[in-house]
């Protein structure tokens, strides 16, 4: 039940600065869409428009049949959206496990009353997500860190914790903002492997922003290139790599 993501003519501006202009794109259910472009092109802003953190000045965002712009941003998790952040935003004083458990919010049943009374159903659900969370952390090689405080982890590992947090909600659409930034070459390989692995187990649509072309090439089915808030081209990673406009605007001659 992966989600189909459809953007139509999305535009966004902040007081005269046009961050996005008429961007349309589509991510087929179950595929991985790569979003690339130079710094300040509007990739993160586009994610923010999808997740409701920014409100597009024009255009539409649909998750399957749901008009995302009509829902309150906090409802989107309920229809299967999950995301990570370019700059990891963990609760530094909480343990890694607590951080990941937060991802289960939309999955867990019950309101304040049933939780303060600890009804059996809530207790059971809580046990279940705790097990899931540990499993996820294991899978991404972070099992050892479960009970460490998040600020005791080095910067690079925060990305992994964030990914686990997003996955715990069992999303059908996952937005990853530079998930491989700060990983060394060897670690990037591992990361690619675990995402592939994940795709096999979960039916999920992924949109990934990444400057690491190796990751883009290895993971994506389709690539959209943004430049100055406009869509520059759309195609496979290989096509993008060869497109002279992309080389000029983004990759640079030496790459």
């Amino acid at each position: 039940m992966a989600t189909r993501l459809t953007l139509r003519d999305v535009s966004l501006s902040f007081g005269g600065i046009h961050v996005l202009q008429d961007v349309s794109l589509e991510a087929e259910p179950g595929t991985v869409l790569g979003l690339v472009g130079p710094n300040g092109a509007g990739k993160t802003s586009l994610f923010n428009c999808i997740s409701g953190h920014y409100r597009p000045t024009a255009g539409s965002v649909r998750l399957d049949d749901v008009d995302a712009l009509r829902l309150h941003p906090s409802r989107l998790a309920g229809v299967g959206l999950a995301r990570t952040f370019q700059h990891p935003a963990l609760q530094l004083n909480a343990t890694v496990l607590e951080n990941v458990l937060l991802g289960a919010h939309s999955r867990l049943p019950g309101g304040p009353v049933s939780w303060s009374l600890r009804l059996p159903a809530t207790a059971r659900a809580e046990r279940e997500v705790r097990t899931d969370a540990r499993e996820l952390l294991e899978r991404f090689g972070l099992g050892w860190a479960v009970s460490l405080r998040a600020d005791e982890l080095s910067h690079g590992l925060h990305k992994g914790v964030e990914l686990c947090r997003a996955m715990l909600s069992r999303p059908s659409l996952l937005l990853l903002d530079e998930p491989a930034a700060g990983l060394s070459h060897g670690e990037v390989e591992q990361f690619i492997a675990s995402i592939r692995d994940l795709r096999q187990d979960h039916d999920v649509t992924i949109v990934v922003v990444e400057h690491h072309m190796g990751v883009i090439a290895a993971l994506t089915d389709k690539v959209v290139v943004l430049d100055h808030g406009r869509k520059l081209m759309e195609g496979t990673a290989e096509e993008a790599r060869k497109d002279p406009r992309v080389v000029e605007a983004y990759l640079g001659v030496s790459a």
Partner: protein
Amino acid sequence: MSGSPRPGAATAAPAGTGGRLTSVLANRWVRVGLALVLVALVLGAPLNMTPYAVYQMTMVAVFAVAVLGLNIVMGYTGQVSLGQSAFLGLGAYVTAYGVTHGWNLVLTFVAACALPAVIGWLVALAAARLRGLAIAMVTITLPIVGIPLARRFDEITGGSGGMTVAFLEAPSWSGLDNDQWRYYVVVLVAAAFFLLASNLLRGRIGRAFAIVRDNESVAMAMGVSPYRYKVLAFTVSALFGGCAGFLYLAGVQYVSPETLSFHTAINILAAMVIGGSATIVGSLLGGLYYVFVPFVAAQVNPNRAAMISGIILLVILFVLPGGLATLPRTVRRLRRGGSSSRAAADG
């Protein structure tokens, strides 16, 4: 106050992170045993204490509930509230009204919790749209406006002279003094509220509160509506404030506009932080602090008691910036080689 959203500077860590605590405590039976001893102490104590000590313990429970309420909205959810005294006072007034009008005690209690909760909810519906200190601003008005309001409706409130309300006398079958009986009632209610709060704050809702405090953008991405959870936290906090108001009247048997004062709100806030923000035990310790520090200060020099409580406050926070609840952690760290982490904090 959580003015600027600095990611690094969130509030104190949740209790019990330390993990490998003394292994003895890990044993379930040891823990159960300890808990039983504690319960026995709490229940047995009033039988052997002076009436004043019983009264003090009663007030500890009263203010622990008030502090806990504030902790929910401020410690756990990060929304500064300077109006907890208003809910406390309102709860006390509602109780006074119920008692003087012959309502059933349980009904009075429910009303004393519910009315502040409703007011808190209404205020929060509007206030939770604001961010950061703007919310503090709105809550500040509660005591400021509450006091003249309480004076104005003097047929209900007794005006500035306040009301003495005698209720909750010990039934004769109990063989207890009034003070003892009130102690048991107050402690029982307080314990129940602590249990409810601790359940609420662990798990789904507690995590949602925490992320609203730490990062609203992430909260939204996780399906937590900051607005709704702020409203919830405010409402629960007001409810606890109202409950504390009921207990307050049970203990003091008197209420006046002064109960609502901003000063009380600030003291509750101080007690919350000194006890330990975002910890359950911290709220209890905050209640102890609230009641005993003025007492201790007066023992040192009754004419300079306020000044001395100021010193005590500063000293406690100097030694334990995370509040009294971090005492065990700090002791453990000091024991483990005395390597203070000064340098890391220098940045």
